[in-house]
C-alpha cells in the first residue's frame, strides 16, 4: 500500500511518498510525512510496516547528526547510503528492520539517488520506487524519464506517476507529498498546475 518514488533532474532530486499510515486494510491516519530532510542537502524517504519505518529512520538520523557534530561536516549522500545499508545488513540476520528507503542528495553540485531495500540491497539509480505502485512507476520512468530534466518537466512526470497508481492500483493511496532537494536545500513542492 505504501508508495515511495524518486528521480534525479537538473541539479535536483525529486522524491514523493504517500501520506497514509495503514494497519492491514485500515487507513489509521493521513497526512504523514515519510520523507526526512536530513543533515546537509539530503532527502531520506522510507516506507515499511509497524514501527520499523520511524524507528529505523530516527536511528539513522541520530547517527548522522552525531557524525556532523563530531566531525564538523555532514556525511555525503554516498556515505549515508552506504551507512544505512550497513546497518540493515548487520541487522538482517539478527533482528531485521522492515524498511525500504530512497536516499537522494546533492554533493558539490552532483546529484545522486540511492535505492535501499529491506534486504540491504543498495543501488545508485536515476529513478527508483518502492511498493506496489513501483510496478507502474518503473514503466513510466522507462518511457518518460530523461537526464537533466527541469523542475517543470519533473513535476509532469511525478503527476503522471501518481495518476497511474491511483488509476490502476486497487489499494491506491489517496494523497501524496512530493519534495525536492537542490542547491537551496530541501522543500515541499506542489504539483498543482
Amino acid at each position, binding site marked *: 500500500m505504501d508508495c515511495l518514488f524518486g528521480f534525479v533532474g537538473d541539479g535536483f532530486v525529486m522524491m514523493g511518498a504517500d501520506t497514509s499510515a495503514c494497519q492491514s486494510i485500515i487507513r489509521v491516519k493521513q497526512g504523514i510525512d515519510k520523507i526526512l530532510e536530513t543533515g546537509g542537502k539530503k532527502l531520506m524517504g522510507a516506507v515499511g510496516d509497524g514501527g520499523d519505518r520511524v524507528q529505523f529512520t530516527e536511528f539513522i538520523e541520530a547517527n548522522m547528526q552525531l557524525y556532523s557534530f563530531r*566531525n564538523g*561536516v555532514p*556525511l555525503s549522500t*554516498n*556515505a549515508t*547510503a*552506504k*551507512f544505512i545499508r*550497513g546497518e540493515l545488513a548487520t541487522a538482517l540476520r539478527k533482528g531485521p528492520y522492515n524498511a525500504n528507503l530512497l536516499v537522494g542528495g546533492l554533493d558539490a553540485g552532483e546529484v545522486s539517488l540511492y535505492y535501499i531495500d529491506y534486504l540491504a540491497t543498495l543501488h545508485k539509480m536515476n529513478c527508483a520506487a518502492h511498493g506496489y505502485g513501483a510496478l507502474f512507476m518503473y514503466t513510466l520512468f522507462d518511457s518518460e524519464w530523461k537526464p537533466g530534466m527541469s523542475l517543470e518537466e519533473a513535476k509532469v512526470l511525478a503527476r503522471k506517476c501518481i495518476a497511474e497508481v491511483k488509476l490502476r492500483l486497487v489499494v491506491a493511496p489517496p494523497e501524496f507529498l512530493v519534495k525536492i532537494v537542490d542547491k537551496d536545500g530541501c522543500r515541499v513542492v506542489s504539483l498543482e498546475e
Partner: protein
Amino acid sequence: MARRYDSRTTIFSPEGRLYQVEYAMEAISHAGAAVGVLSKEGVVLAAEKKIMSKLLETSKTTEKMYKLDNHVAAAVAGITADANILINNARLSAQRYTFTYDEPIPVEQLVQHLCDTKQGYTQYGGLRPFGVSFLFAGWDEHYGFQLYQSDPSGNYGGWKATAIGANNQAAQSILRQDYKEDITLDEALKLVIKVLSKTMDSTELTADKLELTSVTKTESGEVKYHVFTEKDMEPLLAFANAASQASTE
C-alpha cells in the same frame, strides 16, 4: 618525591602532573627526529634513522615511515614496537571507516581515533602509555593537505611545520624562521633536509641515514604517497650539503 606517584599511570601527582605520560615523552626525546612541512602542493615528512648497520635489510624494514591508507601516511618517533601496535590500529580504523561509509577516512578523524586510544592508556587499565609521537600527513576533500602531530598524552594539533624526537626544539626554531606561507613542495623538501642536517649529530647527511616521503596529488587527482629512494635523495642532499658548506666557510 615524585617517585611515589609515578608507578601508576592512572593517577595524578599532587602538582597535577601525569608522570608516566611525561616519562613517555622523555623517551621520545631520545629517539630519532622526524620533521614535517605542509605546502599547497603536498606534505613532506623526513626522519632520521637511528638503526644503521650494513647488515640491515633496508628494502624490508622501514623504521620511521608508514602508509596508513591510500591518502594518509605517518612518521614515528619513539619506541618502534609501540608504534607498530598503533599503526595497525590506525590502518584498521581507516578500513572500517571505508567499509561503513564507502569513502576514505578524513585525516583528522583518523588522528582523533588514534589519540582517543592513546588517551585511554593514561586514564584507565593500569597499563603504561605508548612511547610514541606521530606526524600524520594526508589529504582529504574537506581540508585538502594536512599535517598533524600527536603525543603519548593523546593530545594532537594541526601544524604547518613541526618536528618530534631528538632536538625537536632546535628543529622547530629553524622551521619558525624559514617556513613561509606559500612554500612550494620543492622548497619544503629542501627545508626538511636542512632542518635534519642541522639537528642530527652526524656531520654529513647521507641517504642511508634518512627516510624521506611525501603525500601529493597526481595530475589525475589521485593522492600519492611517495617514498624517496636513495637516488631521489641525491640531488636534495647535495644541495643541502653544499648550502651548509657555504654557510660554514
